[in-house]
């Protein structure tokens, strides 16, 4: 029986190849994701290990507020502490370090670095033990005019001796490049740009004179990291802390590892989706194979094969396809990982990389998942095969109807209801964690998809009738025959179309939801911002001051702080100008009585903490300063994007309480763009935006995410394409004699080609006719669930038309080879074909 199964595969090469491809892509996505994220994890780990190489202990300020590194005003330790540490007998050496954000700017004033990947820090050249970098060229920077940069930046046309601009939220400064340096063991891959200074220059540049971000300490021989920490602890002030080098590496990489774990789950979901679609294709192909082999299977039964052996032979076939497909997918994984990296770079997410990591887990999981899904998808057709009675060997027999067939509609209905129910529960039930909501949504979607796929064989006929109308008009008899052919095996057409439906439903969902989010964002900005122009931060208040002499401005400071035991953003506004630059929908009070000790709150924040005008409120800054405030006003911001921080205080109070205040927003009115551009010349970081540009800027993240999702979802559409090629090829193959007859009685090659193409397009359009409404339904449901967040439902017509065209294109592509075969058929051979 094993021989029969294997020869069966060999005899249906094209079909086996297409089926295998259906599983290859999904497995490649799974293994590629593992390789990609493992590599990234390793790279980041190495990066941090390198950064603290030679550090047995690290002294830093206690974080009052949980800040993302470099995002806001991270607290510092006094520089004097360095001498105290050095004086300890357990300490062999210590170095004070500055770590901040510094964007490198080219000669035209254009930033080279991204906002996220612009690292600026200090290196003590005579303390190589703490230095994670190695010089490629030149020397370490020394003195207030020198900088060292990374090789990637240097490749933009910078050499030792040239000057380069540096922007640190403040005015642009120019430095002379003294050297080029890179990490010893990791390729930052253009993810990071490095701006390296000597410590006094860095302190001055980042406004940290007399302070350090970290003090790196190495122990005397024989002193353990723990002993060193114990020795340092007593001399620390209350707001500083010390950790072992190992612990510091762990703490630092923990954040990125969590991010990577999230990316991994996110991308595995798309691998899973591709496999799910692949399962449809496999199910369809094996079902067709079993149906065509009815007589063969029955003959085997009359020759004494047991049901178990028949089952085994079909299962074996899927096992072989699964194993081969998974192995190929696994091998393609690392290549796909490179592609994924490129994709993230294109989406503006630069990630450090090192040599590809292929863990045992990657191999095991990829193979297991691929084989398991294939076998599961093949199980149902295999069970059908066992119901072939021996008598079919001698009788013109079709496959007996499945015992479940009469209930298919009920099962489908039940699944649709269950799927929609799970989705609704996930969206509307309160108190569910995000993980649970996502799980419910995912399962709900899958159940809904299977349900729709099951019922779709009933929808195929009416849909084909409707969708084939243009084909029948344009292609005459060929079009009408295509329509009739597409409904000859409704179940097969339905499953083929359903595979495409899944991908199309999800891209539609993404497009509709994305449009809703973008529109909501646009409305939020439209309703809240009154000023003509905006400078988007974070930037130094110098920018606002520079503009103030040319225009009416209102600047908004912002930083992180703590209130009511959790982190919250606090804004600093000028009460006399802000109400002109932005709209406020007041519930209580106003800015009028803000004063030095007043606060204006957003409605939601006030409600959450049961505050009203007159209530007292205490806010703690990252530096540990306490602000005692009284609520003077409560307003309702646009729900989707409140733009401002939940707590607003006067700018004077803000500047007094927060270290190195930064503007998150400067609202500008009453001057021409050219005047303003001129005033902003010294600040390359400050970009003048119109209200529309400001909106687009805030929408950009949504757009980038949309593009990323489209690419990832395209994978499952490609998988369904293989299924379509398979189905179209099968129908041409099965109808060889019929095609011969048609050609004999006057069908031209062109007509034969068109007939096959139209059939494929009709099938694809059925997929679109099912997928688009389903996607819109899903988006409507989720939008409804997010209504509290201010998300409105909005139908994007252009993408919907584009998706329909994509389906049409998919149909044409899938039909290309089968149509060629049909038109080049040898009429005589075809007529004699059985």
């Amino acid at each position, binding site marked *: 029986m094993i021989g029969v199964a294997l020869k069966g595969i060999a005899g249906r090469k094209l079909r086996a190849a297409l089926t295998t491809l259906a599983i290859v892509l999904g497995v490649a996505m799974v293994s590629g994701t593992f390789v990609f994220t493992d590599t990234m994890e390793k790279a980041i780990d190495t990066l941090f290990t390198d950064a603290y190489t030679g550090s047995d202990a690290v002294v830093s300020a206690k974080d009052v507020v949980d800040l993302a590194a470099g995002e806001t005003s991270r607290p510092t330790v006094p520089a004097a502490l360095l001498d105290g540490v050095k004086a300890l007998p357990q300490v062999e050496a210590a170095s004070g370090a500055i770590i901040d954000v510094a964007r490198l700017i080219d000669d035209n004033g254009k930033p080279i670095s991204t906002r996220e990947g612009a690292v600026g820090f200090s290196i003590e050249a005579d303390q190589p033990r703490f230095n994670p970098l190695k010089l490629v060229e030149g020397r370490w920077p020394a003195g207030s005019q020198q900088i060292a940069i990374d090789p990637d930046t240097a490749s933009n046309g910078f050499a030792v001796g040239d000057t380069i601009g540096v922007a640190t939220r403040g005015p642009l400064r120019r430095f002379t490049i003294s050297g080029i340096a890179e990490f010893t063991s990791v390729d930052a891959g253009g993810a990071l740009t490095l701006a390296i200074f000597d410590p006094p220059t860095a302190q001055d540049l980042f406004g940290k004179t007399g302070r350090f971000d970290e003090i790196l300490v190495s122990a005397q021989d024989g002193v353990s990291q723990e002993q060193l920490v114990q020795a340092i602890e007593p001399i620390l002030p209350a707001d500083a802390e010390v950790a072992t080098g190992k612990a510091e590496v762990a703490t630092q990489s923990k954040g990125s590892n969590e991010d990577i774990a999230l990316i991994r789950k996110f991308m595995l979901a798309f691998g899973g989706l591709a496999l799910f679609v692949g399962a449809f294709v496999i199910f369809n192909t094996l079902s067709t194979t079993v149906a065509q082999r009815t007589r063969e299977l029955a003959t085997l039964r009359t020759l004494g094969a047991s049901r178990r052996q028949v089952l085994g032979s079909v299962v074996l076939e899927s096992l072989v396809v699964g194993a081969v497909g998974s192995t190929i997918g696994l091998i393609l994984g690392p290549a796909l990982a490179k592609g994924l990296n490129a994709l993230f770079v294109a989406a503006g997410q630069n990630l450090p990389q090192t040599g590809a990591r292929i863990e045992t887990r990657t191999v095991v999981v990829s193979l297991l998942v691929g084989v398991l899904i294939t076998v599961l998808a093949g199980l149902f057709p295999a069970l059908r095969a066992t119901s072939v009675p021996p008598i079919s060997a001698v009788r013109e027999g079709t496959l007996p109807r499945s015992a479940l067939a009469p209930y298919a509609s009920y099962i489908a209905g039940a699944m649709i209801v269950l799927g929609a129910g799970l989705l609704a529960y996930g969206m509307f039930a309160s108190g569910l964690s995000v993980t649970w909501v996502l799980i419910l949504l995912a399962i709900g979607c899958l159940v809904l998809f299977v349900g729709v796929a099951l019922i779709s064989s009933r929808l195929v006929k009416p849909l084909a009738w409707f969708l084939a109308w243009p084909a029948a008009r344009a292609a005459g008899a060929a079009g009408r025959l295509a329509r009739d052919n597409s409904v*000859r095996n409704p179940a097969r057409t339905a499953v083929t179309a359903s595979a495409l439906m899944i991908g199309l439903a999800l891209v539609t969902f993404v497009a509709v939801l994305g449009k809703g989010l973008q529109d909501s964002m646009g409305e939020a900005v439209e309703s809240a911002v009154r000023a003509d122009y905006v400078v988007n931060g974070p930037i130094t208040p110098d920018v606002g001051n520079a503009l103030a002499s040319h225009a009416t401005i209102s600047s908004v400071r912002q930083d992180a702080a703590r209130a009511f035991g959790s982190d919250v953003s606090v804004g600093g506004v000028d009460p006399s100008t802000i109400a002109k630059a932005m709209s406020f929908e007041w519930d209580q009070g106003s800015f009028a009585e803000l004063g030095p000790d007043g606060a204006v709150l957003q409605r939601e924040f006030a409600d959450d903490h049961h505050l009203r005008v007159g209530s007292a409120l205490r806010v703690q800054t990252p530096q540990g300063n306490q602000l005692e405030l009284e609520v003077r006003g409560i307003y309702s911001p646009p729900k989707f994007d409140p733009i401002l921080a939940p707590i607003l205080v006067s700018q004077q109070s803000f500047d007094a309480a927060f270290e190195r205040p930064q503007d998150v927003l400067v609202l500008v009115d009453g001057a021409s763009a050219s005047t303003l551009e001129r005033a902003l010349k010294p600040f390359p970081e400050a970009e003048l935006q119109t209200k529309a540009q400001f909106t687009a800027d805030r929408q950009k993240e949504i757009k980038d995410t949309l593009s990323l999702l489209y690419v990832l979802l395209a994978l499952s559409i490609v998988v369904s394409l293989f299924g379509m090629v398979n189905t179209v090829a099968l129908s041409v193959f099965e109808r060889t004699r019929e095609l011969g*007859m048609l050609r*004999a*009685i006057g069908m*031209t090659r062109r007509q034969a080609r068109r007939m096959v193409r139209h059939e494929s397009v009709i099938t694809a359009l059925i997929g679109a006719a099912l997928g688009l409404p389903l996607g819109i339904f899903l988006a409507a449901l989720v939008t409804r669930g997010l209504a509290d967040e201010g998300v409105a439902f909005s139908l994007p017509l252009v993408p919907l038309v584009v998706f329909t065209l994509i389906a049409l294109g998919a149909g044409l592509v899938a039909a290309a080879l089968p149509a060629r075969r049909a038109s080049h058929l040898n*009429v005589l051979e075809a*007529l004699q074909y059985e």
Partner: protein
Amino acid sequence: MRPAGAGANVVGMSEAIAAPAADVADQAPQAVVATSGLTRDYGEGDTAVHALRGVSLELSRGKLTAVMGPSGSGKSTLMHLLAGLDRPTSGDVWIDGTQITALGDTELTKLRRRHIGFVFQFFNLLPMLTAEENVVLPLSLAGRSPERKWVDELIAEVGLAERRKHRPSELSGGQQQRVAIARALVSRPTVVFADEPTGNLDSQTSGEILTLLRGAVDAYGQTTVMVTHDATAAAIADRILFLADGRIAKELGPSSAHDVLAALEDVSRR
């Protein structure tokens, strides 16, 4: 256009049943199908099979010609070449004055639409179309709208007036072949080719089908070429060509099944 030299090469024309060769050449319209020096080889070199070894013939309008011969005699090959389904190794074929051996695939297909009707052994109806839709299929493919009256007449003629909305799976073999005959006649083709039309039917049904074919020749003057190995079928023909070893070996006028069998045996023995 007239087949050049066709008349001179006609093989086996018998004065008793056909006009003298010279007359046929002069009266070109009479020769609705003609071939000259038709050969067809399969394969090359030593392994080549010579299915036809030079056949020249002319078939008159409005006649039913049967082609007989033992298996491997080349009768199917001849029919395929006449119908433009296959291309000769050498020699030419004319249909209604058009040299079809010079045509490209698209022109040939269009010529088949206009000039040729087919009846196959295995009916070859489209299962998803009704009987009537199957009948008008050649017209649909040509983008012509069927003449209502003619289609009704044809369907009535083949006795399927009651079953025009039935699909092939709801029809018996004989009924399916009736549909196929109506389909072959619907475009009023210059010539109908019937390839073993009774090969898949029982003897009674065969008789009915043969009657229909004969009826079309008599009623509409439908030129028909029928390949068969059934002597009863050949007995309805106006002219019977016997092929053996790729050549026309013998020819009879209207004959009884008994005479046909005898002739066939004679040809096979040679």
